């Protein structure tokens, strides 16, 4: 393609310019033409694998033919149900806590505090670190004998549990990491949201004697709803896609106490060499994600004011 401007005079050389040819299309057609590259990538990397997964999920483990056994098995597969329950708990706790913490941090860092830039960078840092590196670092924190956390607890004479080895503690331990990482990330969005609110609103509130907390609750919080909706959907899908920590730190153990859906899919597909069942689980997870996102948008859309 040449990058000659559209208004360039016709040249002697008869070069076929697809952009100019496409200009003869009706407007809608031209729009689709411009979207073509995106469509191609979407088809190659999203639609085709999706169709592939749908087909694979209806195949038996050995041989050909059509079967729904993979889906039927889901209801009875203990590990799947365990991973589903774990993931449900994981999302239920990390999403609201991350968002709440992110909002709190954003409100604090929105004010004129000393070293604001440094603090903002510090809070945001976890979001840009590679997850695997983060997992390795936290393993040293959680290590039962020489780990940072237990060293401190031990020095204070407090019990020193095996954070990643105790089935009751391993999932909460991963949740803490998730919140730490996600809160910093979403803080940035809330910060942008807060900066988009006219400071005159705060002054108008102050003139009426509105307390800071009330102003936040009645004005800032509702005006941040679009940010919250966006962040909630991203946080939810993040929490369901979480695999790095599990892979590096616990391998789903002990006794599947920290097994999450994506890790289980990975295990079924590549450790048990059973891609058909893995495809079925994946599709169910996707369906659940889509359904949740739709419900979220519907629920919040009613209460959101878009300017």
């Amino acid at each position, binding site marked *: 393609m040449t990058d000659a401007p559209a208004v360039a005079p016709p040249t002697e050389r008869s070069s076929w310019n697809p952009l100019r040819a496409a200009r003869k299309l009706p407007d809608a057609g031209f729009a689709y033409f411009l979207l073509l590259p995106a469509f191609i990538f979407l088809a190659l990397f999203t639609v085709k694998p999706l169709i592939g997964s749908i087909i694979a999920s209806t195949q038996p483990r050995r041989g050909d033919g059509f079967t729904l056994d993979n889906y039927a098995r889901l209801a009875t597969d203990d590990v799947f149900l365990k991973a589903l329950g774990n993931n449900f708990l994981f999302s239920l706790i990390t999403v609201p806590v991350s968002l709440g913490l992110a909002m709190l941090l954003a409100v604090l860092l929105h004010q004129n505090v000393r070293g604001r830039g440094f603090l903002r960078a510090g809070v945001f840092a976890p979001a840009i670190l590679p997850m695997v590196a983060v997992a390795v670092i936290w393993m040293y924190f959680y290590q039962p004998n020489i780990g940072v956390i237990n060293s401190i607890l031990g020095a204070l004479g407090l019990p020193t549990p095996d954070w990643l080895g105790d089935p009751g503690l391993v999932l909460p331990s991963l949740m803490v990491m998730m919140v730490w990482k996600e809160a910093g990330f979403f803080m940035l969005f809330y910060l942008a949201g807060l900066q988009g609110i006219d400071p005159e609103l705060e002054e108008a509130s102050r*003139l009426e*004697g509105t307390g800071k907390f009330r102003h936040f609750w009645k*004005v800032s919080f509702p005006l941040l709803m679009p940010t919250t909706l966006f962040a909630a959907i991203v946080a939810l899908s993040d929490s369901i896609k979480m695999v790095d920590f599990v892979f590096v730190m616990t391998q789903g153990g002990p006794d599947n106490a920290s097994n999450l859906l994506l890790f289980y899919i990975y295990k079924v597909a590549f450790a048990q060499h059973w891609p058909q069942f893995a495809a079925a689980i994946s599709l169910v997870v996707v369906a659940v994600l889509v359904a949740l996102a739709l419900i979220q948008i519907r629920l919040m859309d009613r209460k959101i004011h878009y300017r």
Partner: protein
Amino acid sequence: MPEVLLRSLSKSFTGTRGDRHTVLHDVGFTVADGEFAAILGPSGCGKSTTLRIVAGLDRADSGELLIGGRDVGNVPSSERGLGMVFQNYALFPHLSVAENIIFGLKVRRVGKAERNERLLEAARQLQLEPYLDRRPGQLSGGQRQRVALGRALVGGSRLILMDEPLSNLDARLRADMRTEIRELQQRLGLTVLYVTHDQVEAMTMADKVIVMREGFVDQISAPENLYARPENAHVARFIGAPPMSVIEARREGDALLIGDQRIPAAHLFARFGHDLPEEVLLGIRPEDLTPGLGAPSRPEDLTPGLGTPSRPEQLTPGLGAPSRAENVASDTGALSLPGVLERQELLGADRLATYSVGDQNLRVRVRAASTLPTISQLGASLDHVHLFTRADQVRIPAAIRPVLAQAS
């Protein structure tokens, strides 16, 4: 009785490089109960800061602020008994018009019945009844402006502060809102402190104008006085559209020296008494100058046509200009300045010309139909000649004239 009294308020900010900027120097004025006072000045003159200090959004470094006789320096905004209209209205976009208006009443825990009553009253005053359920985003600029006014009024405050409330409206709406705000203020007997950079707003609405410049108060007076008797050259150069021409001149015996032009001015000096400083600023409004044909004072300025302009289209001076010029020249109550036309622009009904006098420029405003001579005797009645000292730019008052001189 919400009268406002400011006494020598000062305020400085720390700049980005740690240096102090003083934005208010010793600002003081009063706004009487029921008065409409406008703070007028260019951007950065400290007018908004002054208003924010009165509102309690900013604190002064020193000085006193009394509202209704009470020192409110340490009183939070909400207890100062005032309402405020912000420049961008500051309406809550997620709340309806009604909720916006009663927001403050809810905060103050006013009962529901009274809230509704006051809401309806405010809506009636501002003709907002049909819009109470709408969101600010669904309103026009003028309607939003009225909602902001409603929110300021509903609390029952009789003192209303306004920070350039009309600056976001288009010109026609601005003219309508000027009348509307003034009318509302009169009808409800409000005390208004109004900040603007638009002299038309200040002149048309206010009972009292406070002109500010670089953190100082330049003049406090009624709008008419501001135009007729500017207290210093800064105000003179600011008020009027176009503003007064202020040029440098020297007193030499009985004449004024502008550049190398000697202008006889015995009558002018007589008006001001004889203790005039040698270096003065001469101020004349463009509309107070009459361009007339006249012999230039120096022979070398003569064009071949002996005083008649060389350009043919200006050979016939229009609308009896010559006779007026003769009158002016012979009239002892006038100052006559020889000028050469530099440029002119059409302003619609009027024409604005720039004449050079000596090494200085004077603007002259005439009807659009008049023709302007290239060389002219610019006449101005002595009543309309303003003198300022050059050292500190303050107005030199005319001496009290003896009765005999007045009669002549």
